[in-house]
């Protein structure tokens, strides 16, 4: 893996579940853009051609809560930049930044991605 992303590659993000005081979930069941606001870089796990079920099971070993995904092309459409940042915890770790030199996604990018996000796993 390197910093090359296919447009259709999925990026997975763990989010607090509705059961935890609806921290990120609206009353209509949609995701708040606040879930995509992180001044230290929006952490995601890249799919790297894995099946979603495989990614979800791997993420559940490390994260609790719900898992949503966006595609790289969703990021491209809002001019956000995806960066491959493998870590000790995960070789799939990546981050979504606002641009090549701005980390925090702007409000428009956050809302766009929140609306594009697909629920891959919802904690029961």
């Amino acid at each position: 893996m390197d910093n090359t992303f296919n447009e259709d590659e999925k990026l997975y993000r763990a989010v607090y579940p509705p059961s935890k005081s609806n921290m990120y979930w609206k009353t209509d069941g949609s995701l708040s853009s606040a879930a995509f606001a992180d001044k230290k870089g929006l952490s995601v796990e890249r799919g790297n051609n894995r099946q979603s079920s495989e990614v979800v099971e791997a993420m559940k070993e490390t994260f609790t809560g719900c898992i949503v995904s966006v595609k790289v092309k969703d990021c491209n459409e809002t001019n956000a930049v995806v960066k491959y940042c493998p870590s000790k915890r995960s070789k799939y770790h990546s981050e979504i930044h606002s641009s090549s030199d701005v980390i925090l996604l702007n409000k428009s990018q956050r809302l766009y991605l929140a609306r594009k996000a697909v629920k891959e796993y919802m904690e029961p």
Partner: protein
Amino acid sequence: MIISKTSSNINIIENIKKPSTVVGTMIMVSILITGNQTVTLKNDVVIEENIIKENGQADIYKSNTNNNCIFYNLPSYTNSNDSVEKVDNIVINEEKVYNLNKLDKIAELQDNWNNNDAAAFSENLIRKVKYLVSYLDIQPEIFPTACDTLQLEYDKIDGSHLEIEIGEYIDAEIFLVKSNGDEKFYTIKSDLETINKVVKEFYG
């Protein structure tokens, strides 16, 4: 009835637990508010006006209902003769109580609550937003961000969307998306009057 910290009556307040259910009906509560605590007052306490003095700050509790009620403390008033005049009427409804309780939960988040080094939210910010929520004419949905801010959101059926991002020290940042997709960003003073005006303009 004045309740001092040394009187046995203070036990009424000390023994109060946070309510697990919401009072479903609209109630009118006349209160002088400080601190940050949700309490339930017993029937025999609520009818009379109660003034509780503690640490130089005064709380006045009074309800116009015979029912058990939810009382919510909010900051900004002190124990002085002038403070008695600053009694506000607050309409408490389920949405407001839900938001105030949610802010309590957000206040409990510890450092690294998002597993990416996000800091716990300051008491000042929580108190600030609780005050806004208590007086906002239209209730938002409230969410924490990993940018040390709280985000108030409103959505209309036509797809238009309003975000008000509030931090401890900064003005509020407004993000407005109209039904046709046009976006607008600007900042405002994060005072109640200005925010209420923005929300009312959003709903037209």
